[in-house]
């Protein structure tokens, strides 16, 4: 039966060639769009590990000289910010922070423990400002700093990636040559680079008071329901304390939106284009099929006259089309599956293959849908009428 369809397709190869090439291109487009969409969705669906709502962030550059006066100013500024009735929590950190786009990385294999992770310096209130849920242990406090080992908090991803089979809590290692650290807590997640990014292993390292140049960001969580007028208050407090206006104050929500828009604008554009192409193709396909079938009326009439049932005629037309689509799919896939082996794709392999599967399914369904009406029309043809026309 299928061999017979092949013969019919081959007989009309001049007419089918364009359709065939077009289908291959369509497959490639849907593969690309679907796998990109799936990989982005999976990033988006993975948990963030912090809460960005109601957080304001001041990016600041304190004078680099570490003087007692600067330290005092930093301390009292935090105190003043916290004293505002609208404030919930305040924390200092370096300018590695959710949605900021800055990344610090560190890794070594001193003491035989190999790791390579992102990290940040943050003071003891950081987890409270960003509401970072802990999996086990706890976030460091001021008292922990007196210990011989610098307390650090790692993410579960860090444990999974570098500490297979080891108990993370209490584990000691050299973070840098000079700094010996002990893990005292494991945070669930910390996907700080943006909603559409992959989570990297992460470490929180305490921010020392004397590192005034590392006090680069003030994170302020305000109470729910606080209006935008709090911005002016924070602005004035910081300006008064630093005697300087060389800082920027943004609600994290806004940074988040602009960071995310860099992903979803191209994504939306891609989907828009893909949808247009698919509509275009299906309408074209529908038109061509209708026309072709109209031109093959005599053939249908003959088949029916010699006893073919309505179903058989319908099956012939949809079958022919499906064979063509499957052929195009095979050719498209032969090229597509090689891609991950030739170059490094910006998306994960399994997302890529899932994209191929989902895209193929969509096209099959669409093509089948497009053939239904014309085939039905062909199948309903009365043999007498068809033969009479001839």
């Amino acid at each position, binding site marked *: 039966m299928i061999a017979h369809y092949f013969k019919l397709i081959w007989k009309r190869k001049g007419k089918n060639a364009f359709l065939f090439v077009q289908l291959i*291109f369509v497959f490639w487009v849907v593969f690309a769009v679907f796998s990109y969409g799936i990989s982005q969705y999976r990033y988006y669906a993975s948990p963030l590990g912090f809460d960005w709502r109601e957080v304001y962030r001041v990016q600041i550059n304190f004078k680099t000289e570490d003087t007692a006066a600067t330290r005092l100013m930093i301390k009292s500024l935090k105190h003043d910010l916290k004293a505002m009735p609208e404030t919930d929590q305040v924390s200092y950190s370096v300018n590695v922070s959710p949605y900021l786009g800055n990344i610090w990385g560190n890794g070594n294999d001193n003491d035989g423990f190999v790791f390579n992770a992102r990290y940040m310096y943050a003071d003891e209130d950081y987890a409270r400002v960003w509401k970072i849920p802990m999996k086990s242990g706890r976030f460091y406090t001021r008292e922990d700093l007196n210990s011989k080992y610098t307390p650090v908090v790692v993410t579960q991803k860090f444990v999974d990636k570098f500490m297979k089979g080891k108990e993370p809590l209490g584990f000691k290692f050299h973070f840098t040559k000079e700094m010996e650290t002990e893990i005292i807590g494991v945070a669930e997640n910390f996907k700080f680079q943006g909603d559409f990014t992959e989570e990297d292993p992460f470490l929180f390292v305490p921010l020392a008071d004397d590192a005034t140049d590392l006090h680069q960001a003030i994170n302020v969580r305000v109470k729910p329901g606080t209006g935008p007028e709090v911005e002016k208050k924070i602005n004035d407090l910081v300006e008064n304390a630093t005697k300087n206006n060389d800082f920027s104050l943004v609600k994290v929500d806004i940074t988040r939106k602009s960071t995310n828009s860099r992903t979803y604008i191209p994504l939306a554009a891609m989907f828009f284009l893909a949808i247009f192409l698919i509509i275009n193709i299906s309408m074209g396909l529908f038109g061509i099929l209708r026309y072709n079938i109209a031109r093959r009326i005599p053939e249908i009439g003959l088949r029916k006259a010699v006893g073919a049932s309505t179903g058989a005629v319908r099956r012939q037309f949809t079958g022919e089309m499906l064979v063509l689509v499957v052929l195009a799919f095979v050719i498209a896939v032969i090229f597509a599956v090689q891609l991950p082996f030739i170059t490094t794709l910006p998306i994960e392999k399994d997302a890529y293959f899932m994209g191929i599967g989902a895209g193929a399914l969509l096209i099959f369904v669409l093509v089948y849908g497009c053939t239904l009406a014309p085939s039905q029309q062909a199948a309903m043809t009365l043999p007498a009428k068809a033969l009479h026309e001839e």
Partner: protein
Amino acid sequence: MLKNYFKIAIKVLKRNKLYTFISLFGISFTLMVLMLASAVLENELGANPPLSKRDRILFLPSFTGQGFEREKISTYDTTEVNGVMKIDTTVTTKIIEGKVASNTVSSLSYKLYKDHLSRMKTPELISVFIDYAPLDVYPQGQKLTLNGNLTDAAYWKIFDFRFVEGGPFTREAVDNKANVIILRESTAEKYFGKQASYLGKELAWGIQGSFKVVGVVKDAHTSNRSVRADFFVPISWAGENELDYPQAYFGSCVVALLAKTPADMPKMEEELRNVENNLEKANNFDRYMIHEKNAADVYAWQFMGTQETRKGGEFLGIVLGVLAFFLVIPILNLVNLNVTRIFERSSEIGVRKAFGAKTGDLLLQFLFENLIITFLGGIIGVFLSLLVMNVLNRAEVFGVTKLTFNLSVLFISIFITFVFGILSGFLPAWRIAKTPVAGALKTGKL
């Protein structure tokens, strides 16, 4: 003749509404996408104010200092002096050329501009500016985040901003650290509220005091960071630590060079290589690189590449490649539809051929018909793209960049439409024009 073709084309379009709709839908949407893409590229990279002289401008946004690996070589020299062994140790540090140990990339320092770049011979004009100076202001209790650009006087000669009122500040204003400011039209409107004139009004810039508005410029339609600012003040207002960082030639300045002619650009790049080599090596830096970029490179930098690379050409290549790929499917679709449909008309062709029409005549006729339908689609496409542009601009999808449908976009659109019409029409027309007379007359129903 053409009038006849036109009449026939319209008749054919009216004959089968479903196919006409399918064709027009495909054509108009495809053309809309191509028009939008060309509008984005035109607005970003076209020779529009303030970047009319874009083909003569070279931006120097970043600068690299590299330190090479060092090897300590100790040589021991033993000599016997009066029966006692004496060891002489000499330690020399050898720099291993080419093996990079440290790499620092940042913007340029004012010192680099003043001592070296401003003395260059090939450029016609040289400007130095700091294009990032964020400022939060609260004009009506509402927060407004502005970005400033601290410029010199030459800046206004390189970049031909259109002034709605007033004019650029002068060299004297820069030298004297005058409290003058130039605002972008939309920024002035946001800060002061809509008014007939903003000249002479004062804007408070934090602890620096209040600044008098001396000029208002039209909004730029490009996202180029060197011209995108909300306000402009003399560069003399920049803090010392912003102009020059403690290390070597790093700072936060950008330098723009204007060549005398576009052909002088390579010469200017060559002179930059000379400047690099003559810089004083200090702070363990052994090699310096100035990274020049043209307008296309600066644009491409947002999407790919690093501070050190120039990707303008590659980026444009990728964009055009993707657009071409995108174009393939609708064209194939249309060709397919046309090839199928055109047999409707075999009888007409048979008759015309029987009466002596040549293949060329028929080819021309069908191409012309296809061009008519393509242009019809093109006109719909223009309206669609205007609509979409309006939506995109309102939603500020491209930030401050506002898409406009100007004359050059129109010409590009007409060109694209024409190419699309020829591409999608040629094969079907050729096929049908070649049909043998007898067969066409036999199968056709008149």
